[in-house]
């Protein structure tokens, strides 16, 4: 399957210049290259939430679950726990994953379930026409906060690190090659991986120029060290002007949730006689 076959007949309705195109192109390239890693395309499952990001599953010709707002994580977790051979990749917006569904994200992280969450973080609600999100800077003027927000943004990567993440990375929609590398690394990582993509909404919060000025790629960074990761994660708080690192912040090995279930091979279980045995004990 090549990139063309990975594309469905669905009409793409993202705005021209939307940062989501970078995520789409990068992930399609990764899917093509995954075949070299003996990962079959039929074993890939995409999950999305609701928002501009979510349309990505309509555009990619692979198994997908177009779910609801805030619930990408639990759906992805259910799929992975049901069938651990699947590669489950969740796409969610920042409103979706860090707002409506934050609790799920923390718990998936805590479980270290082997799914990859790609967050299309444009720091604004696009599809609902421009309201602030959990990562919008203080004072952001959106349609629900015309005089500016009264609250600071949260730093999702710091939160993820504290919740037990085993893979944390950041990319940006201006940096396709890096995005491809990070996506692939995240997907190949055994355990919970989160990639925060600074993806630009050209219509409601155009940050291209800002990011071009502040973004730099992590070099000579020891991603095995939690302290080092935390230092880099805290360098930019999603609010003040500071250098914004992209790349892999943190990576470590830890047993994955879905591998902790006992497997006898369900076909060999004689359910009837086991039920009878249980009943006999209750007479």
């Amino acid at each position, binding site marked *: 399957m090549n990139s063309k076959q990975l594309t469905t007949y669905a009409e793409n309705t993202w705005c021209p210049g939307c940062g989501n195109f970078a995520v789409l192109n990068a992930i399609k390239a990764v899917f093509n290259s995954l075949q070299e890693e003996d990962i079959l395309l039929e074993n890939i499952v995409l999950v999305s939430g609701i928002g501009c990001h979510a349309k990505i599953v309509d555009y990619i010709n692979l198994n997908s679950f177009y779910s609801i707002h805030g619930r990408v994580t639990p759906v992805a977790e*259910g799929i992975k726990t049901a069938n651990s051979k699947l590669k489950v990749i969740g796409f969610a917006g920042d409103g979706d994953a860090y707002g409506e569904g934050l609790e799920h994200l923390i718990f998936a992280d805590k479980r270290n379930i082997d799914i990859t969450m790609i967050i299309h973080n444009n720091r604004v609600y696009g599809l609902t026409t421009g309201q602030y999100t959990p990562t919008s800077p203080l004072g952001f003027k959106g349609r629900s906060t015309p005089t500016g927000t009264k609250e600071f943004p949260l730093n999702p990567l710091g939160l993820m690190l504290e919740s037990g993440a085993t893979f944390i990375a950041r990319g940006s929609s201006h940096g396709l090659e890096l995005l491809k590398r990070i996506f692939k690394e995240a997907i190949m990582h055994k355990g919970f991986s989160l990639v925060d993509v600074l993806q630009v909404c050209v219509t409601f919060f155009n940050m291209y120029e800002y990011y071009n000025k502040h973004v730099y790629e992590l070099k000579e960074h020891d991603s095995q060290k939690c302290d080092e990761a935390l230092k880099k994660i805290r360098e930019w708080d999603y609010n003040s002007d500071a250098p914004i690192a992209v790349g892999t912040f943190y990576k470590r090995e830890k047993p994955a949730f879905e591998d902790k279930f006992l497997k006898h091979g369900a076909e060999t279980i004689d359910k009837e006689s086991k039920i009878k045995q249980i009943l006999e004990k209750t007479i």
Partner: protein
Amino acid sequence: MNNFSVLIGGKAGDGINQAGLLLARLFSQLGYRIYTYFDYPSLIRGGHNFSIIRASQNKVATHEEKIDFLLALNKETVNLHKNRLKTPSYIICDSDTAQAEGLGINLTKMIKEENAASVMRNSPLLRAFSKSAGIRWGVLEKVLRNSISRDIDLNLKLALKGYNKAKELLKIESLEQTLLPALSGNEIIALGLIKAGLKAYIAYPMTPSSGILHFLAKIADEFDLKVIHPENEIAVILMALGFSYAGEKAAVGTSGGGFDLMNEGISLSGMAELPIVIIIAQRPGPSTGVPTYTAQADLHSVLNAGHGEFVRFVVSPGDAEEAYFCSQVALKISWKFQIPSIILADKALSEGIYSFDIDSIEELKEEPVLWNRKAPYRRYLDTETGISPLTFLSDKEAIIKVNSYAHDEFGITTEKHSKIKKLQDKYIRKEKNLAKDLEKYETVKVYGNKSASLALLCWGSNKGVCVELAESLGLKVIQPVVLSPFPVRQFCEALNGVKRIVSVENNATAQLVRLINQYGFRVDEKILKYDGRPFSLDELEAEFEKAIK
């Protein structure tokens, strides 16, 4: 004496539920059919807990107010319940904590001598009771060994101490009939789901549904079952839908408050056509309500949960055998029609202990419709039956796309008017087809005197009390088991020859009556109880006499 009741009571933490279960199993060992009602407040220590264990030669599924025997671990139990006794002296109490006419045993002292936990007072108490009722030690010993996993030797030692104190009070004869196991409704629902092919159970603890979670978690490894307790009920249902998409049969369980949180999930199940089983064990609401008591007040919540219009199957079992059968039907129907299936139980059914006759239940034949591989796979293929054939992950010949948006046959989002209408028409066709398919089941049950012109109308756990009353008074009982799609034809048939209908429900607004009103049916009288307690047989009889005056 082939129909009797024993009440055991004490504080929370005294092990009253466990003692009630042991008594139920003791009488089961003697060939009796039992029903056990548990009454306990929502706290860990203190308060007043009691169990009424009713044993009979025939099947029973309700308790009686009057009792034959009182076992009291504290003074409060004696004071609260002694007036229920038919013979005032048939009491055994802990003489260290209470005084009563009857037999006092210094249980607290016995426990202290052995340095045992206070909950173990039940062992000598049960032993004294057994001897007083002429039940052989071997029978009790077997029950204790089967049911107690911790400190069994100490429990047996303590039990023997109770022996020396006993005196003969009344004689419980053993019966010559097959012994039946005694389980809670929750456990029976769980077993039914396993039998029907359950692969995953996902739940957040909520009384009175938690018994299913606990039971399945305990036996999960034996059945290769994945039992998960996630962060909240929203995660519960969304995870379960993930399992369902991956082709694994999943169920979730909760009570009203948790189900409120699941509403977006049930709507998603309807749109994306993902099978799922939801067990709701009702308790009094609104909101937190009365957590450890019973109600039937969520019928319309369940019938209307989730926004938009979609097909759902709602079944409400009335006793042990129905719980086993209906939970299988719920799972199978859910997968055959790719819809949410709801098993609507209540505290009385979920936590009540019933004699369970598994051999009386017929085998089910319902299978999902599978893709024939002739044309390229389309997850939402529009068919005459409204059922799109399934294939499961990962299938190298198929791309499986499910969607919460309105979608085309392949699963891609659409906003086209013709496709939106087509999708809705498909659901409507599917519902008609489901209703037709359900005709092969007894969706409305009739009991008692089938030619009587006076009928009791009930649903769920009230079946037991209504059937028993009807049999003694020569009435008919009509019990719709399927509540959605409502079985209009079978309901009409059940009404044949009926001139007067008295409805019996555990809610304040007669919710079943409101449902049948939608189909043009009326009732004449209503007996409604909404104090958190289930009807007892004597209570319903008195209410019935008042209602038909």
